Every structure is written in C-alpha cells, then in structure tokens.
C-alpha cells in the first residue's frame, strides 16, 4: 500500500470515528488545513517533475476529494444526530391542560340573546326599536293608555311608586313598556312600526313572578293595518322565533284597557320531560296579548281614530326565553349564579342572524 493510500485510509477512519462536529473539524484541519497532511502532500507537487506531478497530482487530488466528501457526509450525519438529540431534550408534555380561552368561557345572558333575536326578526319585517325610561309618569303609564281611574293596577299593591312631589304628582316604575308606545305616537308621524323591548316592574314575587321582568311590545299605526295583519305578523314571528316550520296558534278574545278588540294568543305545544315542543301536541300555552289600539289611546296621543288605526302586542321576554331555551325558574334569571349563567348563557360569537340562524 502506498503512503498516500494509507494516509487516505487513516483520515477516512478518523472521519468515521469523529463523534461530534468539533472532532470532525479537527480531522478536517489535520488533513486539509494549511498545515494538514493532504495539504502538505499537495505542496510537494511543485518540486516534482511534470510527469511525476501529473500522476501524483491526480492521485493526491483524488484522495483530497474523497476526504472532502467523507467530511461532508459525516458532517450531515453528525448534524442530524445533534438535532435529534436536541429535539429529544426539548420534549414537552402536550397533555398538560389549557385554560379555556376567554371567548369560550364568556357568556351573554339569555335575555340579551333573546332581545337580539327579537330585534333581528322584527328589523327584517321593517320595525325599528323604540325605548323609553323605566321611571314614568302616571299619565304615560296609565291615563293615556285608557286605564280608568280606580283601576287596580294603579294601586300601591300592584305598582311601584315614588314619593309624591310637591305638586302631588308621583312618578312610578313602568308596569309595561306601553308608555314607550305613547311616547312614540306623540313624537312620530305615522306610519309607525316599532317594537319596544325593555324592563318593567310590578309588585309581585313568587315562583312565576319577579318584581322586575322584561317585555317586548310592538306597535303599528297607519291608515289600513288590521287584525288580519296582526295575526300574520305574530304567526311569522312565532315560527321564526321558535325556529319551527309551522306552529298552530289560537287567538282568543280578551280584554286590555288599551286595545279594542283585544286578543290573547295561545300556541300549541307538547310538553316532553321538561322540554316544550312547538308545532305539535295538544296543550295550549298562552304567550302574548294583542289587539287593535283603543280609540281612546289614539286620541290621547293626538291621533284621530277615524283616520289612523293600528295594532299593538306585548309579551314577556323572560317568558318566551324560558319557553324556548327550557329554563324552568324565572327567579334564576336575576340570581347571577355563574353556574346558571354559564349553562344557559350564550357564547359571545353566537350572534343571532337570519342568514346563519337565530340560535345555531
């Protein structure tokens, strides 16, 4: 074996034996560095005769190339091994549980959600949203709505009053959102199409009544809207709100001071283990009151009942929310129990839309 060959074998052995990149670099320097063994051999070429240089040069360069290749190959292997080792050391425990993202944990109250649903449905039918103050006058809450003097609702045992002012008048907490209808009629020229959602108050406290609750009323005033339109709107609303294809409704004559004729509306349903299914079943469930706006109310709001006409309806937001979403106890709506709120509340990105569905 020639010297060159044995040198090459020796270097290749050292390369194969290099355990890390530093050792490999040492081998490279020893072989190919300025004072490396192969570099030394190359520097002897100058002193050789042209023929000798030709054969020796080719042989030395061949050895150099082999060594270079071996170095590169070994470097790749060592690099890969080093990376594998580092990554192995970097192992994390991916089973560690995460915290809920805030948007996943937060909740909007079911009443807020249902108010958004109502707004969505009625805005599509061309209704605007009207609001008014919770603290009202007797005039707007009762007198202009055709409540006779001495009506039981005007008594201290039904309505929350504030203390009388010096002039004897006293403010009260509105017992329905109907004063918003009055305010709307007094300030807007017909045609009027509004819904009035809001908080209302009555002195009542038991399993199915709370001293504060929420109502949504609707009001249409123009020169031609009649009971047939009212029935259609409420039917469309109920189908949209309860998200069913058909629903049986029953309109019964009833009595309210501010409408004439007055109707109560029942929807057909089936009660099934705490759930209520609409559009099927044998039970009738009362959900709202409505009627043609009483001529006395129109007159009190400066409208001529022979020229203008219209209808109004009202329902409990708390009640329809409970019916739709299967909540059983009204009082829990105002309890602020985070367990209840997390369960019955809605995630912030579950925004009701007509395109995407109200609740899904």
């Amino acid at each position, binding site marked *: 074996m020639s010297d060159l060959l044995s040198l090459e074998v020796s270097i290749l052995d050292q390369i194969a034996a290099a355990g890390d990149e530093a050792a490999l670099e040492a081998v490279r320097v020893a072989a190919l560095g300025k004072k490396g063994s192969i570099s030394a051999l190359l520097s002897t070429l100058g002193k050789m005769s042209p023929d000798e240089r030709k054969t020796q040069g080719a042989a030395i360069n061949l050895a150099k190339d082999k060594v270079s290749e071996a170095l590169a190959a070994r470097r790749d292997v060592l690099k890969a091994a080093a990376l594998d080792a580092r990554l192995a050391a970097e192992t994390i425990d991916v089973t560690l549980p995460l915290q809920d993202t805030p948007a996943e944990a937060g909740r909007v109250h079911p*009443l*807020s959600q249902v108010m958004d649903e109502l707004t969505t449905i009625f805005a599509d039918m*061309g209704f605007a949203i009207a609001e008014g103050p919770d603290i009202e006058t007797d005039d707007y809450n009762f007198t202009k709505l055709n409540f006779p003097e001495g009506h039981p609702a005007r008594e201290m045992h039904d309505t929350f009053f*504030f203390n009388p002012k010096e002039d004897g008048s006293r403010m009260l907490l509105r017992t329905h959102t109907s004063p918003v209808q009055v305010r709307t009629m007094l300030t807007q020229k017909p045609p009027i199409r509004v819904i009035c959602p809001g908080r209302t108050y009555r*002195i009542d406290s038991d399993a199915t009544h709370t001293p*504060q609750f929420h109502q949504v009323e609707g009001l249409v005033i123009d020169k031609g809207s009649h009971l047939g*339109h009212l029935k259609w709107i409420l039917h469309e609303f109920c189908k949209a709100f309860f998200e069913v294809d058909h629903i049986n409704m029953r309109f019964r004559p009833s009595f309210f001071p501010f409408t*004439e004729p007055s109707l109560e509306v029942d929807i057909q349903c089936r009660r099934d283990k705490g759930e209520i299914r609409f559009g099927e079943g044998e039970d009738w469930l009362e959900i709202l009151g409505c009627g043609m706006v009483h001529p006395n109310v129109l007159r009190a709001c400066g409208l001529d009942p022979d020229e203008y006409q219209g209808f109004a309806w009202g329902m409990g937001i708390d009640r329809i929310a409970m019916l739709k979403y299967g909540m059983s106890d009204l009082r829990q709506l105002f309890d602020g129990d*985070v367990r209840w709120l997390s369960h019955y509340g809605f995630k912030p990105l579950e925004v009701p839309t007509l395109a995407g569905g109200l609740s899904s």
Partner: protein
Amino acid sequence: MKFTLSWLKDHLDTDEPVEKLADKLTMIGLEVEHLEDKAKLLAPFTIARVISAEQHPNADRLRVCMVDTGNGAAPVQVVCGAPNARTGLISVFSAPGTFIPGKNITLSVGTIRGVESRGMLCSEAELEISENHDGIMELPADAPIGKPYAEWAGLGDPVFEINLTPNRQDCTGVHGIARDLAAADMGRLKDPAIKPIKGEFPCSVKVTVEDEKLCPGFALRLVRGVKNGPSPKWLQQRLTSIGLRPINALVDITNFMTFDRARPLHVFDAQKVKGNLVVRRAHDGETLLALDGRTYTLDSSICVIADDHAVESLAGIMGGEASGCDETTTDVLIESALWNEINIAQTGRKLGINSDARYRFERGVDPAFMVPGLEMATKLVLELCGGTASDNVVVGNPYGDERVIDFPLTEVKRLAGIDVPLPEMRRILGHLGFMLAGSGPVVKIAVPSWRTDVHGKADIVEEIVRMVGVGKVPETPFERGEAPRKPVLTPIQLRTRRAKRALATRGMVEAVTWSFISKPAAELFGGGKPELALANPIASDLSDMRPSLLPGLIATAQANADRGFGDAAIFEVGQIFKGDRPEDQFMAASGVRRGFASAKGLGRHWTGSQAANAFDAKADALAVLAAAGAPMAALQIVPGGPAWLHPGRSGTIQMGPQNVLGTFGEIHPRTLEALKADGPLVGFEVILDRIPAAKQKPTRAKPVLELSPFQPVSRDFAFIVDRAMKAGDIVRAAQGADKKLITEVSVFDVYEGKGIEDGKKSIAIAVTMQPRDKTMTDEEIDAVGAKITAEVAKKTGGVLRG
C-alpha cells in the same frame, strides 16, 4: 266564575256536548280555565258497607275491616285508620289501581303492619269534594252498595270555571254566560219575563241616600211572616256544586241570585233593624261585626247602610252580623242596590274583604236589573219561605245611561279585516241584546244596560268578531312597504349590544341584577336621592333605584363566592339612575373580577396564576369603550377615582374633566366591608351614553392606507424616575420628541428594587420610528434618541439608566 252544566241549562236550551261548550266559551272570550267532570274522575269510587271492623293486631289506631263492595263479590279486607270505621257503616270504597285525587297517588295492594289491605275507605278530602279529612265518609243506610258514589251523590254535573276578564260583569252570572253562548250558536237563551210581585202593604222602613254618587240606586222590600230554615235540595245543590256553603233559605237566595243573575242582594232581619235605613259614609272609628265574624273599623271613605242605632252593613260588600237572618227570622228586608264601583273596590282593598258581592259591584252591575232582581228574589222568598210582601221602596235612578252608537258597516272590515254581512251582524248583536236600526252605510246600535263595557265602534267590532270567530279573520301578509332596508338600532342600542359581546369575549359572564338596591348601598355609590326611593318597596334591600351597577355586581360576586365559586368575572350592561327624569337614566356597562378571575383566564393554572388586578379592570373598561366606538386616541387616563375605589389603585377615563366616560380599579376595602363582601375585588363602570357620537361619513370607505417602503427602526430606553411619576407621562414625552417620525412607544419593563435608589423606579420603553422618504442613518437615529432623552428629562426629570 264557577257554574255547572245543569245550571247553565236552566238558562240555555242546548244539546251541545260539554267539551264543545267549553271550547266555545274560550273562543268567545270567556276562557275556561278548568272543566271538572267529577262523575268521570270519581267513577271508580263505589259505595260499600263495612261488614266487620276489628282491632288491628299490631297497631292501636288501625282497624281491620271486611268490606262488602256489592255486586255479589267476596268481602274485601281493608286496613283503615279512620276513627269512625265501624261495623255496619256505609262508606266509599276504592280498589287497588284507583287514582286518589286528594292524595295524588294510585292505590296498590299493601301490607300495613303485617296485615294485607286490598283497597281503601275514603274521606271527602281524598275525593276532593271537601276539605273534610276527619274520617271516612258516612253515607245513609239506603245508599246502594256497589253503585258509583259520584253518580249517586249527584256529583255528575260538570263544573266550568271561567277566568273572567274584568270588563264582563254581565258574565258574573250564569244568565249572562248563557246569552253569550246563544249568540255563538250554542243554543237558545231562556229569558222569561220577570213578573212584578204586587205589594200587599206599604214598606214600614224608609230609606235615605245621603250621597247618590256612592249609591245611584237603592230598592228595598219587606216580606213579613216568613219561615226561614234549610233551603230545598235543588238550591243547596246549586250552591254546593260551586263550592258555596248553604246557610239558610234567605241567605241562600241572595247567593243564588249573585251567581245566577250577577245580582248581589242583601237580606236584613227586619226585627233587628231599628227604625229607618240610611246610606251614608261611615263615621271615623265606627265599627261593624260583619258576617265573616270579623270586626272592621271604618272611616269616612267607606259607604255603609245604617239604621237609627248603628251600621248594619258594609254597602255592596258584606252584611253585619247583628241584623243577619237566621232560623228565627220572620220578617225580612230584601235590599237590591247600585254602588259606586271605585268606592267598592277601594273599600274592599282597604278592609281586605274579597266577597262575591264586591267582585260584582266593583265591576259594575246591570243598573236596569236592580228592581227586576228584587222582584225575582221576592218571588223566591215567597216560594221557599212563605210570607207576604210589601210595596217596593225605590230611591235613585236605576236605569243608567242610554247608549246609542253610530256604526258604519265598513268598520268591521276596517279594523278586523273580515267581511261580515249585515244580517249576520244583526243576528249576533240581537242575541247579545243590542238593537240595530237602519241598513247602512251607518246604522244605529243601542247598547243593552248590562253591557257597561261597550261605548264605541271598536267595542261593537269586538262583539261581532268574537262571535264570528277570530279564527275566521284571514291572515294578511304585512308588506314592508317602500321603506329602505337600513339599520334600525339607535347608537345607544348598538353600543349596548357591542359592550355585552365585547365583555363576554373577555371571559366574563353577563348577569342581570335588580334595578333597585338597598338605600345604604345606593348611598355608597353616590345615590340614595329622595326622588329615587320607592314609596312601596317590596323589601328593604330593594328600596332605591341603583346609581351604579357595581353594588349589584359586588353582591352577586359575593353570593357566588358563598356558593363556592370565588373566582368569578361578572358583568352587566343596564340602566342606572341619577334622577327621576328620562334624561337622568343612563346605560352603564360594568364588571367585577374576583379571586383568580383575571383577564388571562379563570382560576389557578400551571401557566401562572394571577389574581385579578386593577389593570384587568382597566382593560375591561377600555375594551367596552373600543367596542362601543369611543375615540380611543382621545381618551385620558387620570389616576384616582370615586370614593368607592382604592385611592391608589383606581383610574378615571375621561375626555377632559367635564366628560368622564368611566372609572376602574380595586374596590375600596371600606366599600366592600359596608357591602359585607370579601375582597380583593376589582371593577369598572363605563357610561355608554357619554361616548361622543361618531361623525357621519358620506361613504363607508376607510381612510387611505399609507405603507412606507422603508424599514421601521426600534430603539430601547430605560429611564430612572421618581416612583410617583406616571408612565403615561413618559410615553407622552417620548412621543412628543418627534410626532411625525415616532409611530409607537410601548413600555416593556417597570422595575424597582435592588440596583435602583429608594423612591425611584426604572421604566423601559421601546420607541418605533417609521421613516417615510428614506432609510435612516445611524446619526439620524441617534439624534432622535437624544431628543427623546431630553424631552423625557424635561417633562419627567427622568435620567437614562446607566
């Protein structure tokens, strides 16, 4: 209002099945709440005889009875605990499998103290025919063994219960209900004329009415020589069928008239009435022992009937015990009167009396029936008790107002959207007692005296529509019309919606708390004004309108902590009250965080547990403002806040001192203590109404975006400043060094402690410079750095950290 089918048939000639009648009642506005068919419900209960009753071997109070259930069946062994279970007793038996309404159970074969029992002997309470549960029922000896009890006892008369609307006083009597049903094609109204009874002598008692507003009419009659005692079976059954207790014939007649004809009456024992009767206001302090056994103290707001001696009756509400009729009564004064509805209602409420008379008089009875009602009652008295009747004494005008309505025939179509031909209108109104004259286009309609609720055209439309059937009104699509599709929410409605969802995305849950809170809590938060205190609160802790949402939220957080959920992030967006005018009501968005409910997440966690702090509350407040469209760059954060916040850990968000948008921080420990809540607790409140309205733009296009082709440069600076120095001031000073070039200044480190002099702190900022026309040279960057250092030194005294 309760009545039975057979009672209804006294007034209505009909063959319609009971269910159909009930449905029709509901659909014409007389909503049937209950239809109880006792015969059906109680069919399995049969009459049985106790053959033997022996002491239970293992229980002192129980008896082992052998019962003959009739129909040739073998005797049945029943263990019975009733004290009156004895040999020979005829009672009511139910076999295993029977549903017992009074106990809400279905009977099964049982073993009681080791003895088998195959059925039950029943009390009245168990059958829900009375509340008597003292023992098992005792039936007369001739009761047929084996026959259904209900049938034998005459309970087979279905009972209707109507939820009567307050306008229909005419239907507080069976006759009025029958009239409605006749108009709805359910049969023919039986309405025989009421013949006056000729008086045989003048009435010896005179009547004076002092105030005809309180008593528009009063009729009285004396019947001498009556024999009072139990009323006949038919009358007793009428009363018991609707849960009334028969008393004696005279009293039963008045109760019968009340329910049969909506005509409450009163009977005085004439022997006990001293002198003449006067209808007057009570004197303050006068008392009356009433027929319910209670003594009422009266005042001048109350209308009474008095004799020469004392008050004898609470007019239109309840009679007095002293002049009441009993078995010894021989001469009776029958009173039929009209009373002021409002006064009756007020008196009834004041005295807490809910009598059947009050129920009718406060709704207003048929004035024209005052005298006929007296005649009918007199006839019944003569028939049932004998005697001779005096002439009538009648005071006042009992006929009410003539009401005639001009009614355009088009009105039904106009309001109800349904065509009803004139003959149909005429037929319906005729059945209801209205008189229709003319044939259009405008007819005259006279309203019957008993329909005190009917005043105008709309009322007539209702009468026609409810009889035709609201179901027949065709549903008519409601066109949107020409109105453009545009957003309908007002700015405050939009802000409210967005605030809720913004806070929910921050991990908070929305509560809805009471609008009213306790006075002390209201005072703690700047409320408690006299005009916001309820005159009649439902409870002392719900007495004042809330000036802030925070007290309610703090109480809610505490309640959750008490339930074991101490890490809670809760918000509310709702109304608060600074005064009683509409413009004093504001829409606030508030939230509290308690325990480990930081903005990062709820509860302790391996990634690092952080108690909620004032900065979480600040971030919540700013998130609401951003979502609600506030001009964020124009907001100022000023240290400190209202008295309910920690003075050193609170801030105020404002646009100048005149427009405070909100506050945030740790809740003051004293506030928490006063609210009996544990801290620490952080919170915020933002008033959504205070956000200035956004400028209206003609298009929806966003401003043009300028993208610089040159790299931005970032440089870090650390300044040593006094501990009290506000980071915000350093940031502002740095920004001010070159407003065009410097696009962002962020604080990336705050340090005090080792290496920093006491009373000082180090604040490190990163400044981003964005060149727009060329890349910055090192010299230019250094020049800006020097300006920043100088500006911060000038404004805050800060020196670069070495």
